[in-house]
């Protein structure tokens, strides 16, 4: 597979050229354009099987989760006997970074930061703590393991921060981080600060590893634009 990250750093998209029978998995809605010869398989990320029955089951699982709360992740797998080209784009403006996993490392990606991965990568939705205390969500993370490439996207620019010790990051600014790091989600500076400081939740990292931070935050955009919305 050849991949090209084009139009970065502000509006990057991922253009991939697939060999015959090679495939790439992408989050739902990411496709910009593709060769007509490529086939598309839609499924829930956790299940490896598509097919009609698999899809019906996935549909009901998604419905159940929607009613009882929880996250689902639909993905599209592009591939085919002739190969072809597919271009994938994230929803927000920003950059794309490729991380290669060799089977020994784990990469945690914040759910909005996952764009695509190659067939040898396993993805699992995980939950990073501090859920209901103030009605927040904590961190919704995608745990990536296996061998292959993971393509993460950022809202804004990506800054790589090597950690050796301790570091605190606003949860909305986390793109991804090494699985080797310890992390704990907490609110910043006590209850009063949480309600009025504007900083919602932060993640405290400890140990040695890399954290990828993004220079924009969807929740901050929401706070900023809300006073201008009509009723």
């Amino acid at each position, binding site marked *: 597979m050849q991949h090209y990250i084009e139009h970065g*750093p*502000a509006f990057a998209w991922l253009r991939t050229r697939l060999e015959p029978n090679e495939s790439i998995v992408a989050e739902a809605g990411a496709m910009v354009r593709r060769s007509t010869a490529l086939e598309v398989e839609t499924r829930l990320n956790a299940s490896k099987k598509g097919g009609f029955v698999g899809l019906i089951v996935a549909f009901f699982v998604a419905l159940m989760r929607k009613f009882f709360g929880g996250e689902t992740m639909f993905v599209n797998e592009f591939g085919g006997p002739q190969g072809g080209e597919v271009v994938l784009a994230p929803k927000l*403006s*920003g950059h794309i970074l490729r991380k290669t996993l060799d089977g020994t490392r784990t990469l945690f990606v914040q759910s909005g930061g996952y764009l695509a991965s190659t067939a040898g990568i396993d993805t699992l939705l995980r939950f990073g703590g501090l859920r209901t205390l103030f009605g927040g969500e904590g961190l919704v993370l995608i745990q990536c393991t296996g061998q292959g490439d993971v393509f993460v996207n950022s809202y*804004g*620019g990506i*800054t790589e*921060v090597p950690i050796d*010790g*301790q*570091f*605190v*990051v*606003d949860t909305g*600014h986390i793109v991804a981080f090494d699985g080797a790091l310890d992390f704990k989600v907490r609110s*910043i*500076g006590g209850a*009063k*600060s949480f309600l*009025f*400081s*504007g*900083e919602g939740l932060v993640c405290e990292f400890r140990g040695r590893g890399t*954290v990828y*931070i993004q*220079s*924009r*935050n969807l929740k*901050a*955009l929401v*706070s*900023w*634009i*809300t*006073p*201008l*919305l*009509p009723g």
Partner: protein
Amino acid sequence: MRHEILDAPDFGLLKLTLDAGEKVVAESGAMVAMGPSIAVDTKMRGGFLAAAKRKLLGGESIFQNTFTASAGGQELYLAPPVEGDLARRELAPGETFFLQSGNYLAHVGDQLVLDTQWGGVRSFFGGIGFFMLKVVGPGTLFYASYGAIHEVAVGAGGYTCDTGHIVGFTSGLEYKVRPFAGFKGLFFSGEGLVCDFEGRGSLFVQTRKAPSLAAFLHPFRPVQQRGDN
């Protein structure tokens, strides 16, 4: 204190390195990441309840956090909420700079004044949403733009700018806000007003504006279900 502006002009990110005892005041919500020896203190102008009410109703209020380092070499990353550029302005004692409130990011210097009570504070945006801050030096001001910053040297012919596109302007300019006859949109707060500038000074224009984004996003909001209060 050292400062570095990263990712500009697309997604300006301010990286400050503080030594022990140094502090910076920033708009609430601006913190991206920081080292372990920085304390955060929240200031609410005009008292707890008044400030809370103003924040919820979108009135003239800024919640600010003061970040103080207790050790040397502490890194602090700050970012504005919208995509765009980030700039620094050093203000001399008594120097005045007018800044749209939504563009304020942070400042250094105990003597810098952010005036939200001056005469023209509400006239630029129809009284809803953002307002015009009057910043008086000495101190260092960091501000952001929605989009790129386009600097216009206003001279003899004067200049007209949609108020939502104003980042800031220097003193020495006279301004007059009026409705823009040619605009007939959905009137999201502040839309439809322009400002005529005269005199000599610099006008900083941003190439995108918040009311248009609000109008674009409005149809995508969830619809209120019957039974919600």
